[in-house]
């Protein structure tokens, strides 16, 4: 067990497991957001539940924040270690001949997502924490939909969200399917699992884009 923490395989598995956890979170987040297109009431109900349920607030939310921080800190650590493993670069390196752009540039798609998370926290998470735990404002179960619409009024913000979701798709395209391999899952079901992961990588970000564009253009 002692060597496990610093081994390259353990880091790889930790990266995959934290990524898989974030994938589940994305699915849940998307499901709630998607309801906003069809029903303001459903969106308000679900958001109110997520925003007030003590298990979600005080157990799942800290776990999620830890998962996000762990994933990007570990990503940086691995990137630095990997850069260090080849001190002298090739004069000519034809990376596109044997690996996809997405797989070779996870750090860059990840950085865009990290920047997006900064904006997203500034837009929603920080005001929410201030509203509930700093100002101790009275809980209003119908406020969420209006706050959501307000954020998507700006074409610049909507555009930034759309661009970020494109990078999320690029990141997931490699990351989700790759996590199966990292945890040792490579067998006769791998082709189907990879297809599912690739479909997820497109469907969820495109879904988020649709939500952003619908809210922007219909209100």
């Amino acid at each position, binding site marked *: 067990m002692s060597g496990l923490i610093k*081994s390259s395989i*353990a880091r790889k598995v930790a990266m995959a497991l934290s990524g898989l956890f974030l994938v589940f979170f994305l699915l849940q987040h998307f499901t709630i957001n998607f309801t906003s297109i069809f029903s303001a009431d459903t969106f308000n109900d679900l958001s109110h539940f997520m925003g007030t349920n003590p298990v979600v607030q005080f157990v799942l939310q800290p776990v999620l924040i830890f998962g996000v921080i762990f994933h990007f800190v570990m990503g940086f650590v691995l990137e630095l270690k990997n850069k260090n*493993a080849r001190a002298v670069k090739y004069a000519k390196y034809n990376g596109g001949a044997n690996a996809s752009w997405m797989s070779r540039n996870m750090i860059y798609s990840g950085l865009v997502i990290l920047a997006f998370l900064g904006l997203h926290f500034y837009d929603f998470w920080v005001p929410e924490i201030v509203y509930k735990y700093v100002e101790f404002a009275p809980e209003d179960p119908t406020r969420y939909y209006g706050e959501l619409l307000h954020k998507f009024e700006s074409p610049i913000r909507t555009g930034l969200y759309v661009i970020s979701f494109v990078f999320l798709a690029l990141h997931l395209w*490699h990351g989700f399917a790759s996590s199966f391999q990292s945890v040792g899952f*490579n067998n006769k079901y791998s082709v189907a699992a990879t297809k599912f992961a690739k479909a997820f990588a497109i469907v969820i970000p495109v879904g988020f884009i649709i939500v952003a564009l619908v809210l922007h253009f219909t209100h």
Partner: protein
Amino acid sequence: MNLTLKIWRQKDAKSQGKIVEYPISGIEGDMSFLEMLDVLNEELINKGDEPVVFDHDCREGICGACSLQINGEPHGPDRLVTTCQLHMRMFNDGDTIFIEPFRAKAFPVVKDLMVDRSAFDRIQHAGGYVSVNTSGNTIDANAIPINKEDADDAFNAATCIGCGACVAACKNASAMLFTSAKVSQYALLPQGKVEATERVLAMVNQMDEEGFGNCTNTGACEIECPKGISLENIARMNREYLKASLKG
């Protein structure tokens, strides 16, 4: 065929190297890449210059000695071949060809295009073997029934010639494909089960100590491997490693 070669020249392990340009003519498509370099070296020797140092041995794709990063790919643009099997017909008249050593911190350059790949030897020494007791009652290996699929997978893993193309191709200079092939060829066979736990821990530990990078599943190693070693081996090694870590 007339070509322009851009070759990495480095006097020794401590010197600073650089790319040097060499025009070469009269190259036939049927020549191997190493024969083309032989022609260049003859020209250099006749002019009184230092020939380009590069690794080679069997020249039939089975020894793993030849290397070379050719136009940004280990063993060049062809698939499932080593540099000695790469034909010049893969190139066109007038082409510029970059020829560099396999690059990794764990593969230091010895001279020009020759690198020290003894890190691979040390990984194998760490656990790439099985103990066979020769007490007089050793069971004949052929008498042990082995599932055909396992036998085939073990054989395929064992075809790794340890050339280092996987490391050279990987953007992280990871040696996971090599190490996983060496772990897999034993892990799949009954003879390898006895030391399975110690083997994978020791070999992965040695791999990490040598300074190779981490695998990020780009799959470049599998594409560039002259023996077609599969990424399945890496997944198997990950499983073996996790199992062994939890046991040990």
